[in-house]
């Protein structure tokens, strides 16, 4: 079984003005000039390299880190690379006010934990990059630096089942035999 509670170091994606980034689209996450890449292991260096102020994210991130962003994270295209580049870096989960619909499917199907946190924008000032955050996928409970509690959405049933199976392919074998 994969863990349903994880703890990691947080990156809060903010604009220069300090606001939480909204509508980060798939070209900002994994630009179309790299779309010919098919090997997941080669995708890491390009993660967020078209997001203003975060071009060097891939060099600063460590396996197990968490990402936090505003609404509609992953808007735009259907490219799987925008999910796979975070797998390549070992990102443990992405927490956001909301996610783009196709992006959400792609992440769920590949077993990358996405945590939807309605109301995050109002409490975003409580979070800083470098915070240590614990998140429980089954309950949606989120704890900052061991003390401050927040409530995000728990995984949906299918999201949890695919996550536990590993990915959509393994899940397909489980449910269809």
């Amino acid at each position, binding site marked *: 079984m994969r863990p349903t509670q994880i703890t990691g170091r947080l990156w809060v994606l903010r604009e220069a003005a300090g606001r939480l980034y909204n509508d980060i689209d798939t070209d900002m996450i994994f630009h179309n000039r790299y779309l*010919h890449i098919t090997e997941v292991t080669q995708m890491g260096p390009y993660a967020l390299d078209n997001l203003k102020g975060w071009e060097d994210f891939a060099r600063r991130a460590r396996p197990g880190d968490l990402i936090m962003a505003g609404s509609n994270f992953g808007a735009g295209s259907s490219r799987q690379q925008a999910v796979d580049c975070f797998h390549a870096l070992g990102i443990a989960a992405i927490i956001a006010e909301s996610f783009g619909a196709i992006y959400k*499917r792609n992440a769920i199907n590949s077993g990358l934990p996405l945590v939807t946190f309605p109301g995050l924008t109002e409490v975003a000032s409580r979070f800083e990059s470098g915070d240590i955050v614990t998140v429980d996928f089954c309950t949606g409970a989120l704890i900052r630096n061991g003390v401050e509690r927040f409530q995000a959405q728990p995984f*949906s049933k299918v999201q949890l089942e695919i996550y536990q199976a590993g990915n959509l392919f393994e899940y397909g074998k489980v449910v269809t035999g």
Partner: protein
Amino acid sequence: MGKTMIQKLFAAHTAPEASVEPGDIIWLDLDVRTARDFGGANVVQNYREHYGDAPVADPRRTFFTFDLVAPPSNIPYANNQQLCREWARSQGIRVYDVNAGIGSHVAIEEGLVHAGDTFVGTDSHLNLLGAMGAFGQGMGDQDIAFAFKSGRTWFEVPPTMKVVLQGTLRAPGTARDLTLAVLQRLGADGALGRAIEFHGPAIEALDLAGRITLASQVTEMGGLIGFPISEAIPSSLLPDHDANYIESIEIDITELEPLIACPPNPANVHPVRELAGKRIDSVFLGSCTNGRFEDFAAVAAIVKGQQLAPHVMATVVPATRRVYAQLLASGVLETLFEAGFIISNPGCGGCASGHLGMTGKGEVQVSTSNRNFPGKQGAGQTYLASPVTAAWSALRGEITVPEVRA
């Protein structure tokens, strides 16, 4: 409780006993499964890794469509296309190759998809098939590899919002201006995770090209699919009168003026008059949003017998080979050529840094394409507008409010 159109369409593609209320997870039968040159090689790679040489569920309902980098301008894409071709051959899958045009449009023209069908592929604008009453959906390469093998996938039934368009479009207003008006109202995430039904007299009056323009931009509203409710929808799919909508809004387009989406995103919509006089360097006409014959014919009617501003480089990219043939036969192509347009083979144009039409740093472009995210169409500034606004702007060399000729 009655059902919305998406509920009816899904109910016909899942187990008879399955509940199709918003939020329910269902197994959705997929009538057609596709991949394009972008994502296609990744689909093949995922397929081989998980299924080896096993045959796809049904090669007659599985297709490749190459439309992004067509013909390929770089070796990695050429390699990916050839990899897809060879694998398709081994599986007995038909390839609509680099000569065909945009996959979603080819699917409509070639009759690969019909009203009421479900159709998936690696193109996030496949939801433009909503224009003909089909459920089209862009998905990632793992999703599509799974769909190739199983012919179905899990799907969460989305809630439906109802958008009623009152009034009548009047020249110089176009379907693109109507679409921009909806984007202005909904914003980039106003339909996030939802299906949309577009109702009202302004919708019923749209032709297929206009409905495609509107449906293709639902992605930019955050929505999954948009159905313009028109005579193209079979009565068995029409929403019930007591269907349940998560939200209903009404937009009156009687006083609609030409609109334009400024950088950095398609929902940053302003009246064209606010930008009138801004010098431009280039114009792009095409894409899955405005690449139909009707779009280019509207441009030809404006530029006929005139020359584009000398400093403006303007490109025409027909959506498909069939559209190209119509342009040839009707004389529209000749009109555009003589006005000074660059005429390209069919394809997606500048999207995904692919086919052509990239902008350089500092370049200002008016485009009928669908996205203007930073870097999407190159390093320049892309303004999204109707073919009519683009034509007038190309003639004057600056962003121009279109006039109505007597």
